[in-house]
């Protein structure tokens, strides 16, 4: 935890993620930081947001107690629907989910995401857990937000494996492979926030976190970073955001660093 600013990198990322949720939106909520981001949004600017969880849960209320995983019983309590995974995926596939959040081990400049394996093509493979619902969210939500640590080994020119499709190799690719909507809308890293150029579908640096610099970001990115003409500094978490966040992660399990 950074004593000077009074918040951690993770807290800043969760706050930035939570701001991507507008009131009334249907949000497909993933594990870990996205789960917290949803709870923060729901407590502040988006009280009518609806949470859809791949376990087969739809919730309109925040859980009555802090939860570490989406399967914790307080996250089932008084939900608006306990159903099949397939039911939640049907809402997603129909186009009823506005936004979702996914993390990853590798991302490239077109927002393709890898959570399956790195290496290959002659080099040793490092195996990761896999897609879970991430591939589905990246294919089927109207937009998805990527949250990940900003390190050069993760921000690579081309991911070793596409678990969750971004814009492939650029404009028109999603349509060409048969995807019917969606694509990444933003990438929230430990250093800044990227959006995507609607013309080229490339990642563009939109804001730099307090304490980070464009140079630091360029150094940790495996391709020449494009920078928005409207580049700004990421707003630090507000007191309200921090207080909501700490209510849901009181032990700082997810946001301790």
């Amino acid at each position: 935890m950074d004593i000077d600013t009074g918040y951690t990198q993770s807290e800043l990322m969760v706050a930035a993620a939570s701001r991507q949720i507008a009131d009334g939106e249907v949000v497909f909520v993933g594990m870990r930081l996205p789960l917290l981001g949803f709870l923060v949004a729901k407590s502040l600017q988006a009280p009518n947001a609806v949470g859809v969880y791949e376990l087969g849960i739809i919730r309109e209320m925040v859980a009555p107690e802090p939860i570490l995983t989406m399967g914790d019983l307080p996250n089932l309590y008084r939900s608006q629907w306990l159903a099949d995974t397939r039911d939640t995926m049907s809402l997603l596939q129909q186009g009823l989910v506005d936004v979702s959040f996914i993390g990853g081990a590798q991302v490239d400049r077109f927002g393709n995401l890898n959570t399956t394996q790195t290496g290959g093509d002659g080099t040793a493979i490092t195996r990761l857990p896999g897609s879970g619902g991430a591939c589905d969210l990246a294919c089927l939500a109207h937009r998805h937000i990527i949250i990940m640590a900003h390190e050069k080994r993760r921000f690579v020119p081309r991911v070793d494996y596409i678990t969750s499709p971004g814009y492939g190799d650029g404009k028109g690719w999603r349509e060409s492979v048969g995807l019917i909507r969606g694509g990444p809308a933003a990438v929230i890293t430990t250093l800044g926030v990227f959006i995507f150029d609607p013309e080229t579908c490339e990642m563009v640096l939109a804001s730099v976190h307090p304490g980070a610099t464009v140079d630091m970001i360029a150094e940790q990115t495996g391709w020449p970073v494009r920078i928005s003409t409207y580049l700004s500094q990421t707003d630090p978490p507000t007191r309200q955001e921090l207080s909501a966040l700490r209510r849901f992660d009181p032990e700082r399990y997810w946001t301790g660093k």
Partner: protein
Amino acid sequence: MATSKLMSMADAVSRWVPDGSSIALGTTLETAIPFAAGHELMRQGKKGLTLIGPISDILFDQLIGAGCVQRVQAAWVGNVITGVGYNFRRAVEEQRIVVEDHSNLTVSLALQAGAMGVTFLPCRTALGSDLYMTNPGLKTVVCPFTGQKHAAVAAIVPDVAIVHVQRSDVFGSAHAWGNMGISREACMASRHIILTAEEIVSTELITRDPNRILTPGFKVSAVVHAPWGAHPSPMPGCYNRDHAVFIDYQKQSRTPELFASWTEKWIHTVSSIHEYVACIGNACSRLSITHHDITEPVDYGY
């Protein structure tokens, strides 16, 4: 009338899960994971299993570490709360197991296709992804009405589904509640079903609420009484999640040597679910449900 299918965990696993079986388990994702049944698979030293599931949490990792597994058809294998599953990772990197990568939607549809008795189902996910690289159960198909390209998912028909429920009668009619994950399609698709249950109750109690029944009793092959059978995962209506066990497991599985000690302590020294419950002793009260929330009655009369 019908014959009781109630038997011990050891008998159920020995009779219905021969070496080489394909098994759907962990089908409720993060809740109600049939750990007790999984541990019995390890205890009996099963070999050559195919594991089928969505997000499997640490049960798949344990079975892989114990050398029971030849193939995995799943969307995610790891530890929900800590990330990487070390046994899984080692086994893949050392090419000791074959992985067919799915997404949660495609593994659900593979079982749904099996449940429906069709050989494939179409969907709009996974197109453009590299899931197709390792998974022969993913192709594409053109809609005969619109000409649109869809992903096609091949049916999976497991030899057996192992599902943990709150209460069952001895014939296999069971009540399950909470998030359902892909349990319904897993049961419908599988050739056999082993139900492990927190409680064995009368048929009368179950049939007083037939909408809450998980799957047709006539499809069930074995019913096992397994209180705390989903620990450390949470069981709606019964107990909360034991986070500490998952966090601890990460450390205990970091090397093959550490995992061998873990196995010795939790699998081989423990001969049954009842001994296991004695071992977790203190956890039981710590995890118990303290904020009860009871359903409104429903009338099924005439």
